[in-house]
Protein backbone atom coordinates (compact mmCIF):
# COMPACT_ATOMS: atom_id res chain seq x y z
CA UNK A 1 0.00 0.00 0.00
CA UNK A 2 1.15 3.51 -0.74
CA UNK A 3 1.92 5.18 2.61
CA UNK A 4 -0.92 7.36 3.78
CA UNK A 5 1.38 10.13 4.99
CA UNK A 6 2.62 10.72 1.43
CA UNK A 7 -0.83 11.18 -0.03
CA UNK A 8 -1.68 14.71 -0.89
CA UNK A 9 -4.73 15.91 -2.73
CA UNK A 10 -4.74 18.78 -5.18
CA UNK A 11 -8.46 18.29 -5.75
CA UNK A 12 -9.57 20.90 -3.20
CA UNK A 13 -7.15 23.38 -4.67
CA UNK A 14 -8.54 22.80 -8.17
CA UNK A 15 -12.05 23.14 -6.83
CA UNK A 16 -11.15 26.47 -5.29
CA UNK A 17 -9.43 27.63 -8.48
CA UNK A 18 -12.49 26.80 -10.56
CA UNK A 19 -14.73 28.50 -8.02
CA UNK A 20 -12.51 31.55 -8.18
CA UNK A 21 -12.67 31.53 -12.00
CA UNK A 22 -16.42 31.22 -11.97
CA UNK A 23 -16.89 33.94 -9.37
CA UNK A 24 -14.59 36.41 -11.09
CA UNK A 25 -15.08 35.54 -14.75
CA UNK A 26 -18.52 33.97 -14.62
CA UNK A 27 -19.77 36.63 -17.01
CA UNK A 28 -17.26 35.58 -19.67
CA UNK A 29 -18.23 31.94 -19.42
CA UNK A 30 -21.90 32.84 -19.50
CA UNK A 31 -21.40 34.95 -22.60
CA UNK A 32 -19.47 32.19 -24.38
CA UNK A 33 -22.02 29.67 -23.23
CA UNK A 34 -24.92 31.82 -24.40
CA UNK A 35 -23.41 32.47 -27.83
CA UNK A 36 -22.60 28.80 -28.33
CA UNK A 37 -26.04 27.74 -27.24
CA UNK A 38 -27.71 30.17 -29.63
CA UNK A 39 -25.63 28.89 -32.55
CA UNK A 40 -26.31 25.31 -31.56
CA UNK A 41 -30.05 25.84 -31.18
CA UNK A 42 -30.30 27.57 -34.53
CA UNK A 43 -28.53 24.71 -36.27
CA UNK A 44 -30.71 22.26 -34.40
CA UNK A 45 -33.90 24.12 -35.29
CA UNK A 46 -32.85 24.13 -38.93
CA UNK A 47 -32.15 20.39 -38.94
CA UNK A 48 -35.42 19.72 -37.13
CA UNK A 49 -37.37 21.80 -39.62
CA UNK A 50 -36.15 19.65 -42.49
CA UNK A 51 -38.53 16.79 -43.24
CA UNK A 52 -36.89 13.35 -43.01
CA UNK A 53 -37.44 12.48 -46.67
CA UNK A 54 -35.80 15.70 -47.75
CA UNK A 55 -32.71 14.93 -45.66
CA UNK A 56 -32.43 11.39 -47.00
CA UNK A 57 -33.02 12.65 -50.54
CA UNK A 58 -30.40 15.37 -50.15
CA UNK A 59 -27.86 12.87 -48.83
CA UNK A 60 -28.63 10.63 -51.80
CA UNK A 61 -28.12 13.46 -54.29
CA UNK A 62 -24.95 14.63 -52.55
CA UNK A 63 -23.60 11.08 -52.49
CA UNK A 64 -24.30 10.68 -56.19
CA UNK A 65 -22.67 14.01 -57.03
CA UNK A 66 -19.60 13.37 -54.86
CA UNK A 67 -19.08 9.64 -55.24
CA UNK A 68 -20.63 9.01 -58.67
CA UNK A 69 -21.91 5.59 -57.70
CA UNK A 70 -25.54 4.59 -57.42
CA UNK A 71 -24.77 1.82 -54.94
CA UNK A 72 -23.03 4.22 -52.55
CA UNK A 73 -25.88 6.69 -52.76
CA UNK A 74 -28.45 3.97 -52.09
CA UNK A 75 -26.50 2.48 -49.18
CA UNK A 76 -26.11 5.87 -47.52
CA UNK A 77 -29.82 6.59 -47.93
CA UNK A 78 -30.71 3.18 -46.51
CA UNK A 79 -28.48 3.77 -43.48
CA UNK A 80 -30.25 7.04 -42.69
CA UNK A 81 -33.62 5.40 -43.25
CA UNK A 82 -32.62 2.73 -40.73
CA UNK A 83 -32.05 5.39 -38.07
CA UNK A 84 -35.58 6.61 -38.66
CA UNK A 85 -36.95 3.06 -38.50
CA UNK A 86 -35.35 2.58 -35.08
CA UNK A 87 -37.15 5.70 -33.90
CA UNK A 88 -33.89 7.54 -33.29
CA UNK A 89 -34.34 10.28 -35.89
CA UNK A 90 -34.94 13.15 -33.39
CA UNK A 91 -31.96 12.08 -31.26
CA UNK A 92 -29.78 11.74 -34.36
CA UNK A 93 -30.79 15.30 -35.29
CA UNK A 94 -29.62 16.56 -31.91
CA UNK A 95 -26.35 14.65 -32.26
CA UNK A 96 -25.74 16.09 -35.71
CA UNK A 97 -26.44 19.60 -34.44
CA UNK A 98 -23.70 19.22 -31.81
CA UNK A 99 -21.31 17.72 -34.38
CA UNK A 100 -21.92 20.44 -36.95
CA UNK A 101 -21.47 23.17 -34.35
CA UNK A 102 -18.23 21.67 -33.03
CA UNK A 103 -16.83 21.00 -36.48
CA UNK A 104 -17.60 24.51 -37.70
CA UNK A 105 -15.85 25.91 -34.64
CA UNK A 106 -12.99 23.44 -35.03
CA UNK A 107 -12.43 24.60 -38.62
CA UNK A 108 -12.70 28.27 -37.71
CA UNK A 109 -10.02 27.74 -35.06
CA UNK A 110 -8.06 24.90 -36.65
CA UNK A 111 -7.36 26.03 -40.21
CA UNK A 112 -5.88 29.42 -39.23
CA UNK A 113 -3.92 27.70 -36.45
CA UNK A 114 -2.55 25.21 -38.99
CA UNK A 115 -1.58 28.04 -41.34
CA UNK A 116 0.22 29.85 -38.52
CA UNK A 117 2.03 26.65 -37.62
CA UNK A 118 3.21 26.22 -41.19
CA UNK A 119 4.29 29.85 -41.50
CA UNK A 120 6.23 30.01 -38.26
CA UNK A 121 8.50 27.42 -36.71
CA UNK A 122 8.06 29.12 -33.36
CA UNK A 123 4.28 28.69 -33.38
CA UNK A 124 4.82 25.11 -34.45
CA UNK A 125 7.22 24.44 -31.58
CA UNK A 126 4.70 25.92 -29.15
CA UNK A 127 1.62 24.16 -30.50
CA UNK A 128 3.03 20.67 -31.15
CA UNK A 129 3.21 19.57 -27.49
CA UNK A 130 -0.26 21.01 -26.86
CA UNK A 131 -1.66 19.02 -29.78
CA UNK A 132 0.19 15.91 -28.62
CA UNK A 133 -1.35 16.28 -25.19
CA UNK A 134 -4.81 16.86 -26.66
CA UNK A 135 -4.59 13.66 -28.64
CA UNK A 136 -2.94 11.56 -25.95
CA UNK A 137 -5.47 12.32 -23.23
CA UNK A 138 -8.29 9.80 -23.03
CA UNK A 139 -11.43 11.40 -24.36
CA UNK A 140 -13.23 11.08 -21.02
CA UNK A 141 -10.75 13.49 -19.50
CA UNK A 142 -11.95 16.31 -21.76
CA UNK A 143 -15.28 16.18 -20.07
CA UNK A 144 -13.83 17.36 -16.78
CA UNK A 145 -12.59 20.87 -17.71
CA UNK A 146 -15.59 21.44 -19.97
CA UNK A 147 -17.94 20.43 -17.18
CA UNK A 148 -16.04 22.44 -14.58
CA UNK A 149 -16.44 25.67 -16.46
CA UNK A 150 -19.74 25.24 -18.24
CA UNK A 151 -21.66 22.78 -16.09
CA UNK A 152 -23.78 20.08 -17.66
CA UNK A 153 -25.56 20.00 -20.98
CA UNK A 154 -24.87 20.73 -24.62
CA UNK A 155 -22.45 23.63 -24.37
CA UNK A 156 -19.75 21.69 -22.48
CA UNK A 157 -20.41 18.81 -24.88
CA UNK A 158 -19.66 21.09 -27.83
CA UNK A 159 -16.50 22.38 -26.14
CA UNK A 160 -15.23 18.92 -25.20
CA UNK A 161 -15.92 17.77 -28.74
CA UNK A 162 -14.16 20.82 -30.13
CA UNK A 163 -11.04 20.23 -28.06
CA UNK A 164 -10.96 16.55 -28.87
CA UNK A 165 -11.56 16.92 -32.59
CA UNK A 166 -9.53 20.01 -33.54
CA UNK A 167 -5.99 18.52 -33.63
CA UNK A 168 -6.30 16.61 -36.94
CA UNK A 169 -7.35 19.63 -38.97
CA UNK A 170 -4.56 21.72 -37.41
CA UNK A 171 -1.94 19.07 -38.04
CA UNK A 172 -3.04 18.25 -41.56
CA UNK A 173 -3.27 21.93 -42.54
CA UNK A 174 0.27 22.42 -41.27
CA UNK A 175 1.51 19.23 -42.91
CA UNK A 176 -0.24 19.97 -46.19
CA UNK A 177 1.26 23.43 -46.43
CA UNK A 178 4.72 22.22 -45.51
CA UNK A 179 4.56 19.51 -48.14
CA UNK A 180 3.85 21.93 -50.97
CA UNK A 181 6.60 21.40 -53.52
CA UNK A 182 9.56 23.69 -52.94
CA UNK A 183 10.09 24.15 -56.68
CA UNK A 184 6.58 25.53 -57.23
CA UNK A 185 7.00 27.91 -54.30
CA UNK A 186 10.39 29.01 -55.59
CA UNK A 187 8.91 29.72 -59.01
CA UNK A 188 6.13 31.81 -57.45
CA UNK A 189 8.71 33.70 -55.38
CA UNK A 190 10.83 34.31 -58.48
CA UNK A 191 7.82 35.91 -60.20
CA UNK A 192 7.33 38.25 -57.25
CA UNK A 193 4.65 36.59 -55.14
CA UNK A 194 4.38 38.29 -51.77
CA UNK A 195 3.52 36.37 -48.63
CA UNK A 196 -0.23 36.65 -49.05
CA UNK A 197 -0.14 35.73 -52.75
CA UNK A 198 2.09 32.78 -51.95
CA UNK A 199 -0.45 31.55 -49.42
CA UNK A 200 -3.53 32.21 -51.53
CA UNK A 201 -2.26 31.18 -54.96
CA UNK A 202 0.16 28.39 -54.13
CA UNK A 203 0.30 27.03 -50.61
CA UNK A 204 -3.39 26.77 -49.71
CA UNK A 205 -4.61 25.38 -53.05
CA UNK A 206 -1.84 22.78 -53.15
CA UNK A 207 -2.44 21.89 -49.50
CA UNK A 208 -6.21 21.66 -49.98
CA UNK A 209 -6.43 17.86 -50.33
CA UNK A 210 -4.53 17.47 -47.08
CA UNK A 211 -6.65 20.12 -45.35
CA UNK A 212 -9.84 18.39 -46.45
CA UNK A 213 -8.49 15.06 -45.18
CA UNK A 214 -8.10 16.91 -41.88
CA UNK A 215 -11.71 18.10 -42.06
CA UNK A 216 -12.79 14.51 -42.56
CA UNK A 217 -10.73 13.31 -39.59
CA UNK A 218 -11.99 16.13 -37.41
CA UNK A 219 -15.59 15.31 -38.28
CA UNK A 220 -15.08 11.64 -37.48
CA UNK A 221 -13.46 12.44 -34.15
CA UNK A 222 -16.30 14.81 -33.31
CA UNK A 223 -18.72 11.98 -33.96
CA UNK A 224 -16.79 9.68 -31.66
CA UNK A 225 -16.66 12.31 -28.94
CA UNK A 226 -20.27 13.36 -29.09
CA UNK A 227 -21.32 9.87 -27.97
CA UNK A 228 -19.05 10.11 -24.95
CA UNK A 229 -20.26 13.64 -24.27
CA UNK A 230 -23.63 12.21 -23.39
CA UNK A 231 -22.04 11.48 -20.01
CA UNK A 232 -22.21 15.18 -19.19
CA UNK A 233 -25.77 15.47 -20.24
CA UNK A 234 -25.69 16.12 -23.99
CA UNK A 235 -28.84 14.62 -25.42
CA UNK A 236 -28.57 12.61 -28.59
CA UNK A 237 -27.87 9.08 -29.73
CA UNK A 238 -25.01 8.83 -27.26
CA UNK A 239 -27.43 9.24 -24.40
CA UNK A 240 -29.39 6.29 -25.76
CA UNK A 241 -26.21 4.18 -25.75
CA UNK A 242 -25.37 5.32 -22.21
CA UNK A 243 -28.87 4.51 -20.96
CA UNK A 244 -28.85 1.03 -22.42
CA UNK A 245 -25.45 0.34 -20.89
CA UNK A 246 -26.66 1.48 -17.47
CA UNK A 247 -29.80 -0.64 -17.75
CA UNK A 248 -28.07 -3.56 -19.52
CA UNK A 249 -30.63 -3.38 -22.33
CA UNK A 250 -28.62 -5.09 -25.04
CA UNK A 251 -31.17 -4.77 -27.83
CA UNK A 252 -31.76 -1.09 -27.26
CA UNK A 253 -28.00 -0.53 -27.14
CA UNK A 254 -27.64 -2.45 -30.41
CA UNK A 255 -30.10 -0.18 -32.21
CA UNK A 256 -28.44 2.94 -30.86
CA UNK A 257 -24.94 1.67 -31.56
CA UNK A 258 -25.85 0.71 -35.09
CA UNK A 259 -27.33 4.17 -35.66
CA UNK A 260 -24.11 5.80 -34.52
CA UNK A 261 -22.20 3.64 -36.97
CA UNK A 262 -24.66 4.56 -39.71
CA UNK A 263 -24.19 8.25 -39.03
CA UNK A 264 -20.43 7.80 -39.01
CA UNK A 265 -20.43 6.03 -42.37
CA UNK A 266 -22.67 8.63 -44.01
CA UNK A 267 -20.60 11.55 -42.70
CA UNK A 268 -17.31 9.87 -43.58
CA UNK A 269 -18.29 8.98 -47.15
CA UNK A 270 -19.68 12.41 -47.87
CA UNK A 271 -16.71 14.36 -46.49
CA UNK A 272 -14.24 12.02 -48.18
CA UNK A 273 -16.04 12.37 -51.48
CA UNK A 274 -15.98 16.11 -51.04
CA UNK A 275 -12.25 16.03 -50.30
CA UNK A 276 -11.58 13.96 -53.40
CA UNK A 277 -13.20 16.60 -55.60
CA UNK A 278 -10.32 18.92 -54.76
CA UNK A 279 -7.41 16.72 -55.62
CA UNK A 280 -5.29 18.18 -58.42
CA UNK A 281 -6.26 16.98 -61.90
CA UNK A 282 -4.15 14.27 -63.44
Amino acid sequence: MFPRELQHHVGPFIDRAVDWLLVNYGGVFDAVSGALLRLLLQIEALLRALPWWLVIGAVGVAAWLLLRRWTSALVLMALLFMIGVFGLWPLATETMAIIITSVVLALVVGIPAGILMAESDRVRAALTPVLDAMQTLPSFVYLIPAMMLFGLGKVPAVLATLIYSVPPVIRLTDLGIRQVSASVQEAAAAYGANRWQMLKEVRLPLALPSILAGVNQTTMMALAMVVIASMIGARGIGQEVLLSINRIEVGRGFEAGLSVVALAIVVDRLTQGFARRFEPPR
Partner: protein
Amino acid sequence: MTPVERSAGIRVENLWKVFAPKGVAVDVNDPDRLAWAERAGAVVAVRDVSFEVKPGELFVVMGLSGSGKSTLIRCLLRLVEPTAGTIVCNGHEVTALGPRELTEFRRHHVAMVFQHYGLLPHRTVLENAAFGLKLRGVPREERYARAREALARVGLAGWEDRYPSALSGGMQQRVGIARALANDPAIMLWDEPFSGLDPLIRREMQDELVRLQRELRKTIVFVTHDLDEAIRLGDRLAVMKDGRFVQVGTPLDIVQNPANDYVRRFVQARAPALVNGYGVQGALAGPWPLKAAAGG
Protein backbone atom coordinates in the same frame (compact mmCIF):
# COMPACT_ATOMS: atom_id res chain seq x y z
CA MET B 1 6.19 42.38 -78.64
CA THR B 2 8.52 44.17 -81.00
CA PRO B 3 10.78 41.88 -83.02
CA VAL B 4 14.05 43.42 -81.86
CA GLU B 5 14.13 45.10 -78.52
CA ARG B 6 17.16 46.25 -76.64
CA SER B 7 17.26 45.50 -72.98
CA ALA B 8 19.66 46.48 -70.28
CA GLY B 9 22.35 44.16 -69.03
CA ILE B 10 23.61 42.62 -65.85
CA ARG B 11 26.67 43.56 -63.84
CA VAL B 12 27.92 41.41 -60.97
CA GLU B 13 30.85 42.50 -58.79
CA ASN B 14 32.65 40.38 -56.22
CA LEU B 15 29.68 38.16 -55.51
CA TRP B 16 29.99 35.74 -52.60
CA LYS B 17 27.59 33.21 -51.22
CA VAL B 18 28.65 31.31 -48.14
CA PHE B 19 26.32 28.80 -46.52
CA ALA B 20 27.40 28.86 -42.90
CA PRO B 21 26.07 26.74 -40.05
CA LYS B 22 24.35 28.62 -37.25
CA GLY B 23 26.79 30.50 -35.05
CA VAL B 24 29.62 30.58 -37.59
CA ALA B 25 30.33 34.18 -38.49
CA VAL B 26 31.57 34.81 -42.01
CA ASP B 27 33.68 37.69 -43.24
CA VAL B 28 34.61 37.20 -46.88
CA ASN B 29 37.18 39.99 -46.74
CA ASP B 30 39.30 38.23 -44.17
CA PRO B 31 40.92 35.12 -45.70
CA ASP B 32 41.99 33.70 -42.32
CA ARG B 33 38.54 33.91 -40.81
CA LEU B 34 36.99 32.55 -44.00
CA ALA B 35 39.31 29.54 -43.91
CA TRP B 36 38.40 29.09 -40.27
CA ALA B 37 34.66 29.26 -41.10
CA GLU B 38 35.16 26.66 -43.84
CA ARG B 39 36.83 24.32 -41.38
CA ALA B 40 33.86 24.92 -39.07
CA GLY B 41 31.51 23.67 -41.79
CA ALA B 42 30.74 26.72 -43.91
CA VAL B 43 30.38 26.02 -47.63
CA VAL B 44 31.45 28.65 -50.13
CA ALA B 45 29.09 28.18 -53.08
CA VAL B 46 30.04 31.34 -54.95
CA ARG B 47 33.53 32.73 -54.43
CA ASP B 48 34.24 36.28 -55.49
CA VAL B 49 32.60 36.10 -58.91
CA SER B 50 32.44 39.17 -61.14
CA PHE B 51 31.04 39.34 -64.64
CA GLU B 52 29.00 41.42 -66.98
CA VAL B 53 26.27 40.44 -69.41
CA LYS B 54 25.65 42.88 -72.21
CA PRO B 55 22.12 43.82 -73.27
CA GLY B 56 20.73 41.19 -75.60
CA GLU B 57 23.53 38.75 -74.87
CA LEU B 58 23.03 35.07 -74.06
CA PHE B 59 25.52 34.27 -71.33
CA VAL B 60 25.93 30.62 -70.36
CA VAL B 61 27.27 29.49 -67.00
CA MET B 62 28.50 25.94 -67.30
CA GLY B 63 29.64 23.74 -64.46
CA LEU B 64 29.14 20.35 -62.89
CA SER B 65 26.78 19.83 -60.00
CA GLY B 66 28.16 21.46 -56.87
CA SER B 67 30.05 24.09 -58.84
CA GLY B 68 27.75 26.82 -57.52
CA LYS B 69 26.06 27.68 -60.79
CA SER B 70 22.50 27.24 -59.48
CA THR B 71 23.31 29.29 -56.41
CA LEU B 72 24.79 31.98 -58.63
CA ILE B 73 21.71 32.33 -60.85
CA ARG B 74 19.45 32.39 -57.77
CA CYS B 75 21.52 35.19 -56.28
CA LEU B 76 20.71 37.36 -59.31
CA LEU B 77 17.14 37.84 -58.08
CA ARG B 78 17.92 37.01 -54.48
CA LEU B 79 16.05 33.74 -54.26
CA VAL B 80 19.30 32.98 -52.48
CA GLU B 81 20.54 35.91 -50.45
CA PRO B 82 24.14 36.81 -51.42
CA THR B 83 26.66 37.05 -48.59
CA ALA B 84 28.59 39.89 -50.21
CA GLY B 85 28.92 41.69 -53.51
CA THR B 86 26.95 43.91 -55.83
CA ILE B 87 24.42 42.90 -58.46
CA VAL B 88 22.97 45.38 -60.93
CA CYS B 89 20.24 44.10 -63.22
CA ASN B 90 18.50 46.23 -65.80
CA GLY B 91 19.66 49.38 -64.04
CA HIS B 92 18.50 48.30 -60.58
CA GLU B 93 20.94 47.51 -57.84
CA VAL B 94 19.35 44.26 -56.76
CA THR B 95 21.56 43.86 -53.72
CA ALA B 96 20.32 47.19 -52.32
CA LEU B 97 16.56 46.62 -52.70
CA GLY B 98 14.22 46.45 -49.72
CA PRO B 99 11.69 43.59 -49.50
CA ARG B 100 8.91 45.44 -51.32
CA GLU B 101 11.19 46.82 -54.02
CA LEU B 102 12.60 43.34 -54.48
CA THR B 103 9.11 41.93 -55.06
CA GLU B 104 8.42 44.69 -57.59
CA PHE B 105 11.76 44.06 -59.27
CA ARG B 106 11.00 40.36 -59.62
CA ARG B 107 7.56 41.13 -61.04
CA HIS B 108 8.75 43.57 -63.69
CA HIS B 109 12.36 43.08 -64.70
CA VAL B 110 13.28 39.40 -64.63
CA ALA B 111 11.61 36.10 -65.40
CA MET B 112 13.01 32.70 -64.65
CA VAL B 113 12.65 29.29 -66.26
CA PHE B 114 13.23 26.33 -63.95
CA GLN B 115 14.58 22.84 -64.35
CA HIS B 116 11.52 21.42 -62.58
CA TYR B 117 9.13 23.80 -64.39
CA GLY B 118 7.48 25.03 -61.16
CA LEU B 119 3.98 25.01 -62.68
CA LEU B 120 0.82 25.12 -60.58
CA PRO B 121 -0.87 21.70 -60.96
CA HIS B 122 -4.33 23.06 -60.13
CA ARG B 123 -4.21 25.76 -62.78
CA THR B 124 -4.68 25.37 -66.52
CA VAL B 125 -1.90 25.97 -69.02
CA LEU B 126 -3.37 29.40 -69.75
CA GLU B 127 -3.59 30.35 -66.08
CA ASN B 128 -0.04 29.14 -65.53
CA ALA B 129 1.26 31.22 -68.43
CA ALA B 130 -0.60 34.23 -67.03
CA PHE B 131 0.63 33.66 -63.47
CA GLY B 132 3.40 36.27 -63.49
CA LEU B 133 0.97 38.88 -64.82
CA LYS B 134 -1.58 37.92 -62.19
CA LEU B 135 0.99 38.56 -59.47
CA ARG B 136 1.54 41.98 -61.02
CA GLY B 137 -2.18 42.68 -60.82
CA VAL B 138 -2.81 42.82 -64.58
CA PRO B 139 -6.58 42.57 -65.27
CA ARG B 140 -7.82 39.15 -66.36
CA GLU B 141 -8.65 39.94 -70.00
CA GLU B 142 -5.30 41.52 -70.68
CA ARG B 143 -3.24 38.87 -68.94
CA TYR B 144 -5.04 36.06 -70.72
CA ALA B 145 -4.53 37.79 -74.05
CA ARG B 146 -0.82 38.14 -73.39
CA ALA B 147 -0.57 34.59 -72.08
CA ARG B 148 -2.29 33.29 -75.24
CA GLU B 149 0.18 35.19 -77.37
CA ALA B 150 3.11 33.77 -75.38
CA LEU B 151 1.72 30.24 -75.61
CA ALA B 152 1.32 30.60 -79.36
CA ARG B 153 4.93 31.76 -79.56
CA VAL B 154 6.15 28.52 -77.96
CA GLY B 155 3.83 26.37 -80.07
CA LEU B 156 1.20 25.62 -77.47
CA ALA B 157 -1.81 27.26 -79.12
CA GLY B 158 -4.81 25.01 -78.54
CA TRP B 159 -3.52 23.62 -75.24
CA GLU B 160 -4.73 26.53 -73.10
CA ASP B 161 -7.40 24.66 -71.17
CA ARG B 162 -5.37 21.56 -70.34
CA TYR B 163 -3.73 20.98 -66.98
CA PRO B 164 0.07 20.66 -66.73
CA SER B 165 -0.23 17.00 -65.71
CA ALA B 166 -1.68 16.21 -69.15
CA LEU B 167 1.47 17.53 -70.87
CA SER B 168 4.80 15.89 -71.56
CA GLY B 169 7.94 17.23 -69.89
CA GLY B 170 8.94 19.21 -72.96
CA MET B 171 5.51 20.78 -73.25
CA GLN B 172 5.43 21.61 -69.55
CA GLN B 173 8.71 23.41 -70.00
CA ARG B 174 7.19 25.31 -72.93
CA VAL B 175 4.50 26.47 -70.53
CA GLY B 176 7.27 27.58 -68.17
CA ILE B 177 8.88 29.50 -71.04
CA ALA B 178 5.53 31.03 -72.03
CA ARG B 179 5.04 32.18 -68.44
CA ALA B 180 8.40 33.94 -68.63
CA LEU B 181 7.70 35.45 -72.07
CA ALA B 182 4.23 36.67 -71.08
CA ASN B 183 5.90 38.88 -68.48
CA ASP B 184 8.00 40.39 -71.29
CA PRO B 185 10.97 40.92 -68.97
CA ALA B 186 14.24 42.59 -69.98
CA ILE B 187 16.21 39.79 -68.40
CA MET B 188 15.57 36.06 -68.45
CA LEU B 189 17.23 33.51 -66.22
CA TRP B 190 17.22 29.89 -67.34
CA ASP B 191 18.23 27.33 -64.72
CA GLU B 192 19.07 24.02 -66.46
CA PRO B 193 15.74 24.22 -68.24
CA PHE B 194 16.36 21.28 -70.56
CA SER B 195 18.24 18.93 -68.24
CA GLY B 196 15.22 16.79 -67.47
CA LEU B 197 14.22 16.29 -71.10
CA ASP B 198 14.98 13.51 -73.60
CA PRO B 199 17.94 14.22 -75.89
CA LEU B 200 15.78 14.76 -78.97
CA ILE B 201 13.36 17.07 -77.18
CA ARG B 202 16.30 18.84 -75.61
CA ARG B 203 17.76 19.55 -79.04
CA GLU B 204 14.39 20.79 -80.23
CA MET B 205 14.05 23.11 -77.25
CA GLN B 206 17.56 24.47 -77.79
CA ASP B 207 16.66 25.33 -81.37
CA GLU B 208 13.50 26.93 -80.06
CA LEU B 209 15.52 29.10 -77.68
CA VAL B 210 17.88 30.12 -80.48
CA ARG B 211 14.87 31.10 -82.61
CA LEU B 212 13.17 33.00 -79.77
CA GLN B 213 16.37 34.79 -78.94
CA ARG B 214 16.83 35.85 -82.55
CA GLU B 215 13.36 37.46 -82.39
CA LEU B 216 13.41 38.84 -78.86
CA ARG B 217 17.02 39.69 -78.02
CA LYS B 218 16.60 39.31 -74.27
CA THR B 219 19.49 39.50 -71.88
CA ILE B 220 19.80 35.89 -70.81
CA VAL B 221 21.77 34.03 -68.19
CA PHE B 222 21.55 30.32 -68.94
CA VAL B 223 22.87 27.70 -66.55
CA THR B 224 23.74 24.19 -67.72
CA HIS B 225 26.02 21.26 -66.94
CA ASP B 226 26.19 20.30 -70.59
CA LEU B 227 29.10 21.67 -72.63
CA ASP B 228 27.40 20.84 -75.94
CA GLU B 229 24.40 22.87 -74.89
CA ALA B 230 26.60 25.71 -73.65
CA ILE B 231 28.43 25.86 -76.97
CA ARG B 232 25.27 25.63 -79.04
CA LEU B 233 23.53 28.44 -77.21
CA GLY B 234 26.01 30.82 -75.70
CA ASP B 235 27.26 34.11 -77.09
CA ARG B 236 29.77 33.83 -74.28
CA LEU B 237 30.20 31.22 -71.64
CA ALA B 238 31.73 30.91 -68.21
CA VAL B 239 33.11 27.64 -66.90
CA MET B 240 32.48 27.39 -63.19
CA LYS B 241 34.25 25.17 -60.67
CA ASP B 242 34.17 25.28 -56.86
CA GLY B 243 32.34 28.59 -56.86
CA ARG B 244 34.77 30.40 -59.18
CA PHE B 245 34.74 31.26 -62.86
CA VAL B 246 37.65 29.25 -64.27
CA GLN B 247 37.33 30.76 -67.71
CA VAL B 248 35.05 33.22 -69.45
CA GLY B 249 34.98 33.60 -73.20
CA THR B 250 33.27 32.83 -76.46
CA PRO B 251 32.60 29.14 -77.14
CA LEU B 252 35.42 29.19 -79.69
CA ASP B 253 37.85 30.68 -77.16
CA ILE B 254 37.11 28.03 -74.66
CA VAL B 255 37.37 25.16 -77.07
CA GLN B 256 40.55 26.50 -78.67
CA ASN B 257 42.34 27.96 -75.68
CA PRO B 258 41.30 26.23 -72.52
CA ALA B 259 42.59 28.30 -69.61
CA ASN B 260 43.75 25.32 -67.59
CA ASP B 261 43.75 21.54 -67.32
CA TYR B 262 40.27 21.44 -65.84
CA VAL B 263 38.70 23.18 -68.82
CA ARG B 264 40.90 21.18 -71.21
CA ARG B 265 39.82 17.89 -69.72
CA PHE B 266 36.24 19.06 -69.88
CA VAL B 267 36.48 20.01 -73.52
CA GLN B 268 38.34 16.82 -74.34
CA ALA B 269 35.82 14.60 -72.57
CA ARG B 270 32.82 16.28 -74.10
CA ALA B 271 34.18 17.10 -77.51
CA PRO B 272 37.15 14.91 -78.43
CA ALA B 273 36.64 15.63 -82.11
CA LEU B 274 37.33 19.30 -81.53
CA VAL B 275 40.65 18.78 -79.89
CA ASN B 276 42.02 15.69 -81.61
CA GLY B 277 42.65 16.12 -85.26
CA TYR B 278 39.84 18.21 -86.65
CA GLY B 279 40.88 21.45 -85.04
CA VAL B 280 38.87 24.57 -85.52
CA GLN B 281 37.91 23.79 -89.08
CA GLY B 282 36.36 20.59 -87.88
CA ALA B 283 34.62 22.45 -85.15
CA LEU B 284 33.08 24.90 -87.55
CA ALA B 285 31.87 22.17 -89.80
CA GLY B 286 30.91 20.05 -86.85
CA PRO B 287 27.60 19.49 -85.20
CA TRP B 288 27.52 22.81 -83.42
CA PRO B 289 26.52 26.09 -84.98
CA LEU B 290 29.43 27.88 -83.34
CA LYS B 291 28.34 31.45 -82.96
CA ALA B 292 31.86 32.83 -82.79
CA ALA B 293 32.37 31.67 -86.34
CA ALA B 294 29.54 33.88 -87.50
CA GLY B 295 31.64 36.89 -86.58
CA GLY B 296 30.31 37.37 -83.02
